[in-house]
């Protein structure tokens, strides 16, 4: 059975050996052939010498989740041969460097040896080149084996080295060394291959952090305080890059201030200070950073200062698995900081939403005067995803929320920073420097009255706290709504999910549907939860919450905040740090059915003729 445009290729390398860019070119060349790809970079928390993998799913149907079972494994790391081999599907291929002879124990797979090291040492002098070009030689051979358009790869090389044109010819030479070797020596009748189609014709291939960094530029962010931490660093780097492209004025001055802080407390402090002073400002971090920011988050919540915080989640707790993905900061972000606090969360599910939600978050922060936490993760943030091109409506106007200008203040009497004038719990704020005599006030994290005056009157403070609760509830109006997908037939089973899990759920649902199961889907896009989510739960007898953490944190949040009965809210949990696969979800779903007869019946119920 030949699998055209539908297979998984995986590379095993040693990190720091220069494989990353060659591997990415591999993925991108297939994307340029019009075929959907999803590359996943599985890298260690280390700079050189440890195992690293690059997994590329090629899926004509556009499934973007990981898939278990490798069709073709390019194993270039002796440390991991043994375990890598096990992942190959029966009948699959193992490609290796046969410069030195190797013996492999497994029977039911095909071995393709390519003497990459030999080819390179025959053709290059410099030991560094010998090392680096192995990856390109391999790419050339692979292109032939999988029938990838060589011109596309040549173009990619040219683009990659645009700024160092000297490197183009030797790279192209290396590519052809691989091509020639394959053509002359290998059996080219593989049952996996790529064929040009037009599926990704108008699409782009981009990482979530790149898109989010760009979204910050579009959202009008001008100040960023940040501290390096995997996997959030590339978001700020992208912001910096696009600031350099789009925000340098005629005098060569920059329309943004980006400061690498000394730690996360300082990073968020800067973002808070800047927002307080009327700039749109953000910070980006990951779990350990969020923990360090807790005290400041409480200040921003209580003093009602806009703030955008990107949490690119990784494997926790503690330093945990810094280069693996999880969705395990839900509770710690929703309730970050001591005392009664609740924070607004956004859950992008792919780079497109990273862009959109990043841009939108600044409006939300300004409107609601509170921290907005964008809950991305390593999988979305640092992997390349095929998405529709990014769009921007040039009619968009920033909504700066309730900020009083000089004129407003001139006209106003008895302004109070924390007065609920409009009945929506959202007060009016003023910025330093606006007016000579009116509108100044003292921002504080201590208990205060509606006029921002310090008070130790507990009832006044309690009233203020209740107004903040009201504001939180009213925020629903502005937040991205959840998205539903109805099953073909009426069903009493619903799956709730969010973020990077979306692609795996879509695929799992297709599989289950093809097996006769009917499941309604709901994707959460923000917290607090709206009525849509609440009624989805009410409408279904059985709810399953799929999430990537140990403690079913989103399920807890749903039950808590929507006051739902938990006995029929089930969980599917994946927390090994790898993006979840559709197969895993299917398996776990069927396991749930096994344990619960009424659910089984509901899932497979046949449409009764009308």
């Amino acid at each position: 059975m030949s699998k055209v445009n539908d297979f998984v290729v995986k590379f095993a390398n040693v990190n720091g050996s220069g494989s990353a860019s060659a591997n990415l070119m591999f993925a991108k060349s297939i994307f340029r052939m019009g075929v959907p790809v999803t590359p996943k970079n599985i890298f260690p928390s280390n700079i050189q010498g440890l195992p690293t993998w690059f997994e590329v799913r090629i899926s004509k149907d556009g499934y973007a989740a990981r898939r278990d079972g490798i069709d073709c494994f390019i194993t270039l790391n002796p440390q991991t041969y043994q375990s890598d081999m096990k992942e190959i599907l029966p009948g699959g291929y193992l490609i290796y460097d046969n410069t030195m002879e190797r013996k492999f124990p497994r029977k039911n797979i095909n071995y393709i040896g390519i003497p990459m090291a030999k080819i390179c040492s025959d053709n290059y002098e410099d030991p560094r080149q010998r090392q680096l070009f192995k990856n390109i030689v391999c790419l050339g051979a692979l292109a032939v084996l999988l029938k990838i358009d060589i011109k596309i790869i040549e173009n990619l090389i040219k683009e990659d080295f645009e700024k160092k044109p000297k490197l183009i010819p030797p790279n192209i030479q290396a590519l052809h060394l691989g091509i020639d070797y394959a053509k002359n020596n290998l059996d080219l009748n593989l049952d996996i291959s790529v064929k040009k189609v037009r599926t990704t014709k108008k699409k782009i291939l981009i990482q979530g952090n790149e898109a989010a960094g760009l979204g910050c530029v579009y959202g009008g962010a001008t100040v960023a305080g940040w501290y390096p931490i995997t996997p959030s660093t590339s978001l700020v780097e992208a912001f910096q890059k696009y600031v350099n492209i789009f925000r340098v004025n005629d005098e060569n001055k920059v329309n943004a201030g980006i400061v690498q802080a000394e730690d996360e407390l300082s990073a968020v402090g800067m973002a808070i200070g800047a927002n307080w002073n009327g700039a749109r400002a953000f910070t980006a971090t990951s779990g350990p950073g969020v923990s360090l920011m807790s005290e400041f988050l409480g200040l921003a919540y209580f003093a009602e200062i806009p703030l955008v915080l990107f949490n690119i989640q990784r494997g926790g707790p503690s330093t945990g698995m810094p280069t693996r993905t999880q969705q395990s900061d839900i509770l710690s972000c929703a309730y970050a900081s001591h005392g009664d606090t609740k924070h607004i969360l956004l859950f992008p599910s792919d780079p497109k939403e990273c862009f959109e939600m990043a841009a939108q978050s600044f409006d939300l922060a300004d409107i609601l005067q509170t921290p907005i936490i964008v809950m991305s993760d390593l999988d979305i943030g640092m992997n390349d995803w095929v998405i529709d091109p990014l769009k921007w409506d040039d009619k968009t106007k920033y909504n700066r929320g309730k900020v009083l200008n000089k004129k407003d203040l001139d006209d106003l009497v008895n302004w109070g920073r924390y007065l609920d004038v409009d009945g929506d719990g959202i007060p009016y704020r003023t910025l330093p420097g606006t007016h000579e005599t009116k509108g100044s006030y003292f921002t504080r994290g201590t208990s205060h009255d509606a006029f921002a005056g310090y008070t130790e009157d507990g009832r006044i403070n309690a009233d203020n706290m209740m107004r903040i609760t009201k504001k939180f509830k009213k925020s629903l109006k502005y937040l991205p709504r959840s998205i539903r997908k109805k099953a073909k037939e009426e069903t009493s089973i619903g799956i709730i999910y969010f973020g990077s899990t979306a692609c795996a759920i879509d695929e799992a649902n297709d599989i289950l549907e093809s097996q006769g199961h009917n499941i309604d889907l709901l994707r959460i896009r923000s917290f607090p939860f709206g009525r849509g989510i609440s009624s989805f739960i009410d409408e279904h007898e059985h709810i399953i919450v799929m999430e990537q953490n140990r403690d079913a944190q989103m399920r807890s949040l749903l039950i808590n905040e929507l006051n739902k009965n938990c006995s029929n809210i089930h969980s599917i949990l994946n927390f090994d740090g790898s993006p979840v696969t559709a197969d895993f979800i299917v398996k776990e779903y069927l396991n749930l059915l096994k344990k619960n007869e009424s659910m089984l019946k509901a899932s497979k119920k046949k449409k009764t003729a009308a």
Partner: protein
Amino acid sequence: MSYIKKPSAKHPRLPKNRLGLTRRDYEGALSTLCAGCGHDSVSSAIIEACFNLSIPAHKLAKLSGIGCSSKTPTYFLNKSHGFNSVHGRMPSVATGANLANRDLFYLGVSGDGDTASIGLGQFCHIIRRRLNMLYVVDNNGTYGLTKGQFSATNDKESKSKKGEDNLFESIDLAALAIQLGAGFVARSFSGDKEQLVPLMTAALKYKGFSFIDVISPCVTFNNHIQSTKSYQYFREHNEALGFLDVIPDKEEIKIQYDEGTTTEVEIHDGSKMILRKLDNNHNPYDKSNALSVLNGHQSDGSVVTGLIYLDKNEMDLHDTINTNHKPLNILSEKELCPGSSGLDFVNKNFS
């Protein structure tokens, strides 16, 4: 409770500054500090300096951390926006605020607990970034608001109110600031308005990071003779480095000095500071010398006051990172958003 009274009715005969404002226009809410607290004197000096410089109060932002000292911004300049942040983290909030709008004056007031303990890391890094602000520490060697624990600036072997010995060496914030590259470093005493006001005036005008370590006795927890931060101890051991005055752009303020030689010190806007050295050897432009003076006097128990160090090369964070002269917080959508054409470019790059 306070040295600073709430403005009652406007008094027509009060002297006015260039903006036509009186000192009362620079006052704040009634202080809730202990009667006699040094911090209230520092607030008075701030009022005086801002009045002298004719700073429009709404063009100044007051920032602080947590502590008695950090409460003081409520007690001056009630036309200014204030931000009482969290303990020890004012520097980062000030950094963000300053990044957002480079056109305001930034005045940070902190305590020795707030700065030398929980906030030490942020303090060091704000100095390194040469944030354009005046950072004042109301230094009383104790944690006033939490009732008298030793702070890290308390001198070794001085005693707490309860009679306990401080066992640890003190941190000299001025020396640290010099070591880390602050542009303007001074030390003074809350009770010495003559010296403090001109220092503040000069510091507010300095472009870059100015730091004034003001010895400001806590009358409640640290004002007994064993404490080197008490009124009495200070008065006995003060060794003033010089008196300082600023000649602002428009009018020259003349102050009579009794003794000593003078040195002219230029600051960025062309105005001049006159430094009257008591110690003929003190050269405020030399880092090593400044540090030696501090470290030397620390060991003989005297407190050096005056302008200790000045870097003539004024520059701030905005210069370093090359931000627009126009404040970032007033940039228009047009200046900020690259629009759909920008996305065409980006989409092409990723296809």
